[in-house]
């Protein structure tokens, strides 16, 4: 009897193992904006670790330039390769619509990770964003307010004039400044655009300082902008007069924090975006997660995650603030 059940068990075990071998592991690919962008190293790390843990195949590809159409051949190629999940940080909110539709028609799960198809949400299955972007503007205003004592002139140094995420945050900043009496004594004097180029961002920052000699604070909600702004302040030695903050990568900002040029700045964990994306995708594929607004699921290390309106998923509730005390704990 015992023997028989053992045999049965063995047979079942072999069958299971066979089934596991026969079923191809889920193939996940993440298409970045462009190669050589340090931001994506961290996201990719999250994808890789999660795939290692869950047993799926992962690859990262990205075009050489971040131009609107450069990702299209890569998406076509992934369709041809027969991947199961495409994660993408779209370079354009609408130029990818047709090819993403093709991918979805082939049954591929399309997730935008770290950036969305604003206005064209129907062309992807879900989006994974680090935080709820509605709060970014508010938090950034609070951050600069706390640095300048809630009084004085401030300016914004953004990416490009049409960058959808940045513009959403800038709207949030303006609303907060207008409606919250706490910030009544702060005056936004200018919003300028450095096009995410160090040279351009630097000249814009210099122009801000020339045009507004009483400027007390600058919010640069873009990694290139904040580094350029910090560098201008550092080389002029005016860190105690003009306070730079915004969204930046710890790896790029570490030196400025250490020498006191920048007191504090914010961001989120790009790593967690990749980590969450894999868990969510696998859950949707095996049916354990329903990709519906309002449904919830558990992700190791992140806890309970809710799918918000527009099938938007956030990895964290609040922005992470980096300062001299904690900057060394982050390795991205």
């Amino acid at each position, binding site marked *: 009897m015992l023997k028989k059940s053992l045999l049965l068990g063995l047979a079942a075990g072999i069958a299971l193992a066979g089934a596991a071998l026969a079923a191809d592991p889920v193939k996940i690919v993440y298409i970045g904006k462009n*190669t050589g962008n340090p931001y994506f190293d961290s996201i990719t790390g999250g994808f890789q670790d999660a795939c290692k843990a869950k047993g799926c195949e992962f*690859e990262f*590809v*990205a*075009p*050489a*330039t971040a*131009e*609107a*159409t450069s990702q*299209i*051949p*890569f998406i*076509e*190629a992934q369709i*041809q*390769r*027969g991947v199961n999940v495409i994660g993408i940080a779209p370079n*354009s*909110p*609408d*130029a990818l*619509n*047709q090819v993403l539709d093709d991918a979805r028609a082939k049954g591929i799960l399309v997730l935008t990770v770290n950036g969305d198809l604003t206005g064209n949400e129907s062309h992807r299955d879900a989006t994974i964003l680090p935080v709820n972007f509605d709060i970014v503007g508010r938090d950034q205003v609070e951050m600069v307010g706390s640095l300048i004592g809630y009084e004085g002139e401030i300016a914004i140094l953004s990416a*490009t*004039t*049409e*960058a959808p995420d940045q513009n959403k945050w800038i709207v949030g900043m303006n609303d907060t400044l207008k409606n919250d009496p706490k910030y009544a004594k702060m005056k936004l004097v200018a919003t300028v655009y450095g*096009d995410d180029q160090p040279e351009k961002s630097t000249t814009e920052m210099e122009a801000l300082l020339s045009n507004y000699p009483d400027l007390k604070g600058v919010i640069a909600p873009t990694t290139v902008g904040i580094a350029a702004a910090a560098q201008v302040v550092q080389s002029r030695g005016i860190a105690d007069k003009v306070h730079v903050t915004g969204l930046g990568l710890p790896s790029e900002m570490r030196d400025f924090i250490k020498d006191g040029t920048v007191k504090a700045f914010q961001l989120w964990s790009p790593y967690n975006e990749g980590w969450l994306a894999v868990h969510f995708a696998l859950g949707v594929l095996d049916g354990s997660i329903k990709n519906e607004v309002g449904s919830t699921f558990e992700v190791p290390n992140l806890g309970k995650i809710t799918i918000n309106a527009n099938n938007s998923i956030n990895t964290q509730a609040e922005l992470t603030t980096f300062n001299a005390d904690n900057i060394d704990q982050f390795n991205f």
Partner: protein
Amino acid sequence: MSASDLQSAPSAQEAAPPRPAWQVLLIRPETMTLALLVLAVFAGAWLSPFFLDISYILRSFTLYAEFAIVALVLTMVIIAGEIDLSPAANMALSACVFAWLQQAGLPVPAAVAVGLAAGLAMGAFNGLMVIGLQLPSIIVTIGTLTLYRGLAQIIAGDKSIRVPEWFIGVDKIMVLGVPLPVVIFIVLALALGFLLSRTIVGRQIYQIGTNEVAARHAGIRSARIKFGLFLAVGLVSATAGMMTASRLGSVRYDLGLGGELQMVLMAMLGGTYIFGGRGTILGTFLAAWLLVLVSTGMIVANVLPAVQLVVLGILLVVSIIATNFIYSRTQR
């Protein structure tokens, strides 16, 4: 093909007996292109099991078809001893003009007409600078490349403009199972091939490129023909711009960015002689397929885009060296 053969035939007869036909055929630059094409098919199949799929390759060709179509006309410009580096910028500007006008309320057919006219005007401006003012075409078109794209950026900013739904999807129209852009490319190649090798104007283009002064003395209206060629490039670029807009469903100023390199590469790889006077449409036709196979093969095999840049750069340099070498051996 025939013009250069005819020219060399009499002098060769005086000096030595004509080469055997197989030898003439073997040392033509197009033969090199064809050989590389075959090689690319094998290399692609070896790199990735997903590569050898006719419908995938045809679909991929639509991504490059716009450039390939312009490259055909560009080949004639180069044979006539000039060059035009501005077509990719022209594509962007005429597409932006079109998209902007139709968004402003102009009926789509009228907007298309204005867009095409804009392309024609850009070609005329190039022609005026090069032929009217006798400026070197290579520098003029580097200038207009920057200018046209800059104007596109002024018109469209860095946001993308949607085109109407019904205008989208030229690449989804199938003619006997072949996407329409590919059909257009093939038909245009046949027409231009005929024009270049079987008509008087075609011969005259070769003669202008071989020796413009002599051609003018022989009564060829070189200025008029060259101006016509610049106009043709302008018009075809604008058409390609519309096709890209239709394929993407939206237009942004960076449409076709860097396309000039691909176009020149197609002409060079096809054995068009950079100093003018030699080259064939057949060569460019084959080279376009070669380029698509090489790019697609590398992308579907997830080869780093960096390697692709290197391969394209090497292909360009090697193809000029080989073409130069072949011509210096056969045409003396």
